[in-house]
């Protein structure tokens, strides 16, 4: 049995007029680094939202580990224990420190304040930002903010990291650094990393590239 099994996944909007996903079948193994590519509106972000338990399918099934994502009552638990998210615009909370931002996913994990602080400093160290632990994200550069967001995505020791255009707002140098960091962490922690991108240079870092068009998978290739 594969780590992630997606069968006949369908999702449409505006009373079925827009078919975001049109019968997607996919299996993903633990520790894979996958890039999902495609034009805008091809369904790649919709799939990512479904895999992260942020949205539910109209039809079909998603099973990740022991979680059946049709069971909406378990979605909060799934997100808090199993998944880490990285967004294009980092989405850090201003007015609180970087360390406090990293601690946000830990609130649902019943950790003490001391444990939370210890873990957040370890993760900031991992992304080489321990010295910015008490800084407000507002004073950081774009690349640094995205590194804090990566640290936050690791806070709950996730089995999967879902990243939606994680380098979309970065320059080429920062893009390269962030991808390198993600790749290192993915290997080190044996995390399944799924990146949605429209940038082929970014996708080339992945071990497997899945291409979407009009809600369907049109290519699924290993990238050696």
């Amino acid at each position: 049995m594969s780590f992630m099994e997606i069968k006949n996944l369908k999702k449409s909007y505006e009373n079925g007029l827009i078919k975001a996903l049109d019968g997607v079948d996919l299996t993903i193994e633990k520790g894979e680094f996958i890039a999902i590519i495609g034009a805008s509106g091809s369904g790649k972000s919709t799939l990512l939202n479904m895999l992260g338990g942020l949205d539910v399918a109209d039809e079909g099934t998603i099973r990740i580990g022991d979680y059946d994502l049709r069971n909406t009552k378990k979605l909060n638990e799934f997100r808090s224990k199993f998944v880490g998210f990285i967004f294009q615009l980092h989405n850090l909370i201003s007015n609180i420190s970087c360390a406090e931002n990293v601690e946000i996913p830990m609130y649902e994990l019943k950790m003490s304040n001391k444990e939370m602080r210890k873990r957040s400093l370890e993760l900031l160290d991992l992304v080489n930002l321990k010295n910015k632990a008490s800084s407000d994200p507002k004073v950081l550069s774009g690349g640094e903010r995205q590194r804090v967001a990566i640290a936050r995505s690791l806070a709950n020791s996730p089995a999967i990291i879902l990243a939606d255009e994680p380098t979309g707002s970065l320059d080429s140098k920062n893009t390269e650094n962030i991808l390198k960091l993600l790749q290192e962490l993915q290997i080190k922690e044996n995390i399944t990393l799924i990146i949605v991108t429209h940038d082929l240079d970014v996708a080339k870092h992945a071990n497997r590239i899945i291409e979407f068009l009009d809600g369907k998978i049109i290519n699924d290739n290993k990238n050696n």
Partner: protein
Amino acid sequence: MKLILKNPFKKKFIAVLAIIGIGIGIGAMVALGFVTDSVINGIDNKIHNSGIDMLIKGEKVNLTDPNIVFYGPNKPLNKSWLDTIKNTEGVDSVAGVYETKFLNKNMLVPINLIGMENTSLKYQGNITNGTAFNDDSKEGIISSGLAKIENKTVGDDYKIDDDDYKIVGIYEPDNLMGVSLSFITSLKNVQDYVQDSENLSNVIVKLKTGVKSEYVSKELKNEYGDNIDVSTSIADNGVMGEMISMLKQLSLAISLLALLIGGIGILNTMMMSVYERTREIGVLKAVGWKNKRIITMVLGESLVLTMVASIIGTILGILLSMIVLKFLMDDVSLVFSINTILQAVIFAIIIGLVGGFYPAHKASKLPPTEALRYE
């Protein structure tokens, strides 16, 4: 917790406006409460300093009773009650008083005619000019207010219906029954005037040293129930008591109105806050925060605003009541009532919870994908 403490102040100007709104409400509640309590306490102190610990009247009259015109809000007491009350544990001495009204052609309002033994005069106020009257003569003392209006002084005669009284003194009313327009003569003279030698309108009670008026009041109430009406404070007594009660109700109404306006401010602030932080709430949901935690966070933020406002409002209220008492009632000292502050803080908490609930509920119901797409 850190989010709860920091989020409300992200938009400082809006937060300050909300705090000012609630703070004014709390300040008004505290100031009005303190001033009312201080005034009551000041009057009570004067009364008790003059030696009156309690005032006992007959049973209260139903407001629809037509006889209220004759004997006011309380029925007369039979004079046998004097001994009954005197024998109550803790009571040191008692004095009977008969109070009625008479009309004078020069005055538009009825004037109080008070009958009491001259040994009890100390309870009524200070004689500032002249002496006390003789219980067996047609003599009396006139209140300074009435003397001024009637242009009377010591040695003049004063006519009440067909009887002529000699004015032997002028006094300054200062007690639980104190009314500015009054004439006091002996108890017998007034009982003759009303042709009722069997009754009294009220009984002044002085307690033994160290005995609390609340204790004796409770004993009397347990023993005689509604047959008597016991006042230990100006707030319990007659027209003044009703005025104080009205003042308290008015101050509560003003405070609630101010708090309601503040509450709308909180609702608006929190709605704005949730609206502007839609994306942030989306992130919190994406990382697995339960709806309960999001509701707690928004309600907590609302409570932080109201608690800051209640601290500022309480300080403001205390300062305001000090200023009012200093410049308008310099003989009344400020009474700090923890109940008034507690009442204000409890109202603030309720306003915070009510004002924060809808935005909190709205935040918790935001679909995470839509919230994350929010620009």
